[in-house]
Every structure is written in C-alpha cells, then in structure tokens.
C-alpha cells in the first residue's frame, strides 16, 4: 500500500499550456484597444459589413439628442483645435493642445474647452463635463464648425477627403439624426458611414 502512494497523480500540462498560449497570442494580436467613449450608445444592427476606415474620420455620436465628436489621429486633433480656436477667438496653449490630442472623443462646448483641458486626464472623460456639442442653435452651431474645420484640416494638410461616421443610438428619434444629416449636407458633406452592429437575429 505504501508503494502505491508513490505513483504520480499529476497531469501533463504541456498540451494545455500550448493551447492556452496559442489562444492568448490570438487574442493579443486580434484585439484593438477599445477607445473610451464619453457617451456609449447602443448601435442598431444591420447585415451590411462595410468596414469603417480608420484614418481621416470624424465620428459623430448621437444619443439622447446630444452630440459627441470623435476625431481620429493625434496630429489631426491638434490642428483642428487650433482652427476651432481661431474661429471662436480662443487661444489654446501648446499644453492644452497636447491634452486635447489625448481626448478620443468629447462633447463639450468650445468655450468650456479650456476648463475641461485644465482638468486631470482621468477627470476629463467624466460624463458630467460632456453635455454635448451645441448644434441646435443656428447661430452657435459648433457641430457644423467642427466638421468644417476638420474637413479643411484634412484637405489642406493631406489633400484627403474627410469621412464622416454617424453613430446613432438605436432608440434615437429619426428627427435628431435628420437634423445632423442636414447640418452635414449644408456643407456638401453628402456621404456618411452609418455605424451599425452586426445583426445576429434572423431578420
């Protein structure tokens, strides 16, 4: 009986280790860091699978009648903020521009941008500071200004056309989306990408 105890009860883990590291490698390589969003929305589903380009894209997130803007590319963000500053007569310092370059998306009034950028990086993404970019008032249509400046920036610096993606919440009223589309169309930005999720149910 004493000798029976000596027989090993351990399992060979080599294969398990191999498989798990293979999976690990797969997930590491396929994952893209998810950009934090100030206002996450539920996307409607569709069967179309057009991929969204990752460069020169301005995404407009629409949720609860508020609009949030995301600009791809750090250099683009800096340049666009400079242009916005010129339009609204706000002088942004280099430090503020760098802080803005780290902001993946935002929904703040340009006049409150300085206050927002003065906050610590962890506080900047808090939803209470992002009440939405003003767009309803035709005299203070900042959404329109952002889009125009972004388009000018990408055309003058890179000679490429800016692409606009609309990320609408599934339950958003069509009227709001139409308003956004009208703002874009007034500047002859007639082509947009409507961001959707993949439809899994049988439609």
């Amino acid at each position, binding site marked *: 009986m004493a*000798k029976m105890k*000596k*027989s*090993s009860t*351990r*399992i*060979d*883990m*080599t294969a*398990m*280790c191999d498989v*798990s*590291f293979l*999976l*690990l490698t797969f*997930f*590491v390589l*396929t*994952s*893209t860091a*998810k950009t934090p969003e100030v206002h996450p929305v539920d996307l*409607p*589903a*569709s*069967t*179309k*699978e*057009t*991929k*969204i380009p990752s460069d020169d894209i301005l995404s407009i997130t*629409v949720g609860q009648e508020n609009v949030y803007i995301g600009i791809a590319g750090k250099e683009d963000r800096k340049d666009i903020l400079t242009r916005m500053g010129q339009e609204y007569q706000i002088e942004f310092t280099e430090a503020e521009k760098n802080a803005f370059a780290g902001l993946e998306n935002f929904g703040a009034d340009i006049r409150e941008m300085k206050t927002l950028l003065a906050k610590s990086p962890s506080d900047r993404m808090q939803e209470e500071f992002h009440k939405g970019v003003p767009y309803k008032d035709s005299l203070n249509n900042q959404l329109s200004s952002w889009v125009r400046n972004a388009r000018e920036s990408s055309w003058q610096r890179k000679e490429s056309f800016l692409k606009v*993606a609309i*990320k*609408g*919440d*599934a*339950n*958003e*009223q*069509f*009227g709001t*989306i*139409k308003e956004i*589309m*009208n703002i874009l*169309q*007034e500047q*002859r930005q*007639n*082509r*947009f*990408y*409507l*961001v*959707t*999720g*993949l*439809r899994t149910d*049988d*439609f």
Partner: protein
Amino acid sequence: MAELNTGGGEGKKGGKKVRSKKQNTGVDLTAMVDLAFLLITFFMLTTSLSKPQSMDLTMPDKIKDPLKDKPQEAKESKTMTILIGKDRKLKYYMGMINDPFGGVGPTDSAYGKEGIRKVILQKMANLRAQGHEGKNGIVVLIKATEDATYTDMIDILDEMAITGVDVYALQDMIDEEKAVMQ
C-alpha cells in the same frame, strides 16, 4: 502523460531498484497555465468581439443648381414609397400619394422577411418580367416621420441592401403622407 505511474505493478517483479531513467523530469506547468488563462480571460473580455460595421449612405446635393439639376423622373409603376412611422409602423404605396398606381393607397406592412421584403421582391420580379432591372428598375423612396427611431431607418436601409435595390433615396415627408402616418 509520461508522469503517470512511474513505478508500475510489473516493475516490481523485475527488480527492486528504481532506475534513474524513470525519474520525473517534468516541469510544473500549473502556474504557467494559470497565468496564461488569466491573460486569455482578460483579453477576451476587453476585446470587442463585434467590431462595428457601417453602412454607406450617399445623399444628393442639397444646394441645387437650377441649370444643371432637373428632378429625376420616374415612372409611377416603378416608384415605391416606404413610410416609416412611430412604434414601428410601416406603410408603402406605389406611384403618387394622391393618385396611387393601380388605385391601391398606402398599405400596412411589417419589418422583416415576411413583411416589406416580400413586397419589394415581388415588385422587383414584376418589373424584371417587363425588362426593367438594376438602375432602370424599382425606385424606392424612404420617408420617415420625426418620431420614428433610427433603428427603423437602418432596418429599411438594410432591406435595400438585402433585396439589392439599386436606386433608393431618403426624402422628407409631404403633408399628405404625414396625415396618413398619424
């Protein structure tokens, strides 16, 4: 499974000495596997598995050049209007609202394959039989009320992609249509 039962029952009979060859040389991988699974779990959860896709939508130019742009004319038999209303209400008609083609006014329909898709495919098949296909085929006008949801619009645009309608446009509703969708 090399580590299991290094001293078997038969080995006992052969000799009492345990040969050095049978010594266990396996490394303990438990900790490594633990770590690997922990990382897998982390990456699985942080990866957004359903990457967002998008739908291309091109709208006509709003700023009209009266010399260049003439409204596109389409035959009544080819023009289908889909009206999207509140609470997933859906109606369609052919031709013009005041004088619908074939005398059939706005008809109720539903989303999905048993509803509007069947209707669109039927109309497309009819037109194909008359030799109208692709760009010369059906023209779908999509009109939504303000209180329809964004999902409704995406569902109909998706329907255009599924059925393969080449010519479709998003338009504003006229008053008669708004009255119908009340």
